[in-house]
């Protein structure tokens, strides 16, 4: 090896060692580099477990059934549903058959995603001619307006298929009788002639028996909200996703805010500000206010895009504003906390991204919390994201007002308070 290459190698090695030393000295930043993907995998795996495994034998979907019919067809539907893999039917509460009120209550509280109500006279109405629309057999799906439409669609589709099949099996003998009458075939014909009669007429008879309503029994399916929520309108997929995306975006202020403190200290401007005749609270308010306004503008913009391009409905505006004010305060508090705890740019960057993603995943921004396992559901309550999302859902999807979002607003303000107190306590002004 020539002396030049030797020198080059020496220099490269020196740089590598220097960089490694710097990295090792900022151990928190280094730890975050490893911890971030590990946390991400852990949280996302637990959170998404519901999506990929819900409806499986190990993680069955719980569906409440209120049978107000009691007839043979509805019993058949229920026994078919029970045989479905990945579904657990809940028919009883406290030893008694489920009432509509209890089912609505459970759906409203997010204890189950779906309730099935088999209306009175379902079994009898199935047997009536399908042309009589006033007498249609009815089944209602009760689900919360915030329940993910895409997730529900598959479950509802399967249930509808089972109901149609069972209804058709029940209705075919009646229909066949009607078809025989229409074809002028009398039941009094000698037994030996039936084989020939059926051979000659089977296609026409089956077409009449199954083709009266396109091969389906006449069952009407209704979509209802649980009691207390605005009835008659279910949110669009965009309405469901915009609050989550908004909250996710709002918490990215943590990175911007915390980095600005670190940069200010690095530039030396912080030292000059501390030497100025200025109180620390005044400095903090002046420093945080622009980021708070940025957050509010960000929220307004996200909802404006939703209204203008996707025609989403915002619900009670004053309630929406109150939740937004509290949400932005919590996000700013977290930003200041990261600025107070992070010593270097790398630490601040690592913590900000880690918190933005992990809290969003835990808080139900990426995966609805109702399909998370129990422990994750409980953990999600420790994130401001989950409370902000609940507040927005109450206003935009359940049509609730200011009074109903006071709890969510209060909890968000509580998060903000804790973040600010710890941040002020730990912030290094010197």
């Amino acid at each position: 090896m020539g002396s030049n290459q030797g020198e080059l190698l020496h220099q490269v090695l020196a740089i590598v060692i220097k960089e490694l030393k710097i990295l090792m000295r900022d151990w928190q930043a280094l730890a975050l580099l490893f911890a971030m993907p590990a946390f991400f995998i852990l949280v996302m795996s637990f959170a998404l477990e519901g999506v990929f495994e819900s409806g499986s034998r190990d993680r069955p979907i719980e569906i409440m059934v209120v049978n107000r019919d009691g007839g043979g067809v509805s019993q058949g539907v229920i026994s078919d549903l029970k045989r479905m893999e990945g579904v657990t039917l809940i028919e009883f509460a406290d030893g008694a058959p489920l009432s509509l009120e209890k089912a609505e209550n459970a759906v409203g509280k997010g204890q189950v995603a779906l309730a099935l109500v088999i209306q009175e006279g379902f079994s009898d109405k199935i047997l009536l001619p399908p042309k009589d629309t006033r007498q249609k057999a009815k089944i209602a799906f009760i689900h919360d307006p915030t329940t993910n439409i895409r997730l529900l669609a598959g479950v509802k589709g399967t249930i509808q298929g089972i109901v149609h099949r069972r209804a058709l099996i029940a209705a075919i003998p009646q229909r066949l009788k009607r078809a025989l009458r229409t074809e002028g075939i009398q039941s009094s014909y000698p037994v030996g002639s039936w084989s020939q009669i059926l051979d000659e007429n089977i296609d026409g008879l089956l077409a009449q028996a199954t083709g009266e309503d396109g091969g389906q029994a006449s069952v009407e399916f209704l979509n209802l909200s649980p009691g207390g929520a605005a009835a008659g309108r279910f949110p669009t997929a965009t309405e469901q996703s915009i609050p989550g995306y908004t909250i996710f975006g709002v918490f990215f202020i943590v990175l911007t805010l915390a980095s600005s403190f670190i940069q200010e200290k690095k530039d030396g401007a912080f030292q000059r500000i501390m030497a100025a005749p200025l109180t620390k609270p005044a400095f903090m308010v002046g420093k945080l206010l622009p980021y708070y306004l940025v957050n509010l503008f960000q929220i307004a913009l996200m909802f404006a895009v939703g209204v203008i391009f996707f025609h989403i409905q915002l619900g009670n505006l004053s309630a929406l504003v109150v939740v937004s004010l509290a949400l932005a305060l919590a996000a700013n508090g977290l930003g200041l906390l990261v600025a107070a705890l992070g010593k270097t740019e790398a630490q601040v960057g690592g913590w900000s991204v880690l918190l933005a993603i992990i809290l969003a995943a835990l808080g139900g921004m990426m995966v609805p919390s109702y399909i998370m396992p129990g422990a994750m559901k409980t953990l999600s309550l420790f994130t401001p994201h989950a409370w902000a999302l609940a507040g927005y859902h109450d206003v935009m999807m359940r049509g609730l007002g200011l009074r109903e979002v006071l709890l969510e607003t209060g909890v968000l303000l509580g998060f903000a308070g804790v973040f600010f107190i710890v941040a002020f306590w730990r912030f290094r002004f010197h």
Partner: protein
Amino acid sequence: MSGPIIRVEDLRKKYGSSEAVRGISFQVHPGDFFGLLGPNGAGKTTIIGTLTGWIAPTGGRIEILGMDLSSRSKEAKKKMGLVPQGFAFYPTLTARENLGFFGKLYGLKGRHLEERVTYVLGIVSLEDRADQAAGTFSNGMKRRLNIAIGLLHEPALLILDEPTDGVDLQSRNKILETIKRLNLDGVTILYTTHYIEEAEDLCNRVAILDLGKIIALDTPRGLTQSFGKGIIQIELNAAMDESLLRQMETIGSVLWMDEKKRRVHLETDQTASALSQLLEWKEKRKAIFKSLDMMEPSLKTVLIRLIGRSLRD
């Protein structure tokens, strides 16, 4: 004002178990150009931090224009201007925007603020760059903007921490001229620098710091008279042997010698005769002597004597 501009009594600052400032006391009088000299880690920046209020002292008392800094910090800070060691401004803002922002922190507003901004830009010769982003400036221009921000609110006391560090000679001269003029106009200056010749040229009083303590405080002339002897810096090609060391001790005292025994500081009252003796030995032992450098008594030799090395070593 008849009292001191700065009165510091038994100032202390601890960081954990390490004591950065160990009970120092001094006064700076109106019109003073007061220098704080000392090697890195001597405590200069910590002292400036405590004087300007961004570092809380562990003990002691600071008065600025008779106002206790702990109880009347806001009023005291209004009388002080700070020029920190780093470029303490926002690089993405223009010079004018930076000045405007910091001026407002000191309560300047409206036409008065505009006038002051224009005035200080003139003092540091940055009028034609006023609307350029400060981050695009050369180091010299950044240093000048740093000074302009410190001057904006017409402080009675200007504290400058290494204001010429890392700038070219031309910019350095410009900065020094500006500071001299300010002092002549009545602004009291507290100044730290690595450049001993700057302190010698500018300061009427100098405090020499080492390991968080003031080890000498006087006028540069007074310090030189008290502590300044001639120093001969000797560099050898090989380690000093015992016989050469004994010879050297006959013409002066060895102040300092490096670990390899190849660099020696020899202090003497009779620099001329000591040098001629050394030149004679050099002639005889050409192989061992690499260089001889004589320093007449000055602030530099005072520092070498008191601290054991030059500030730049």
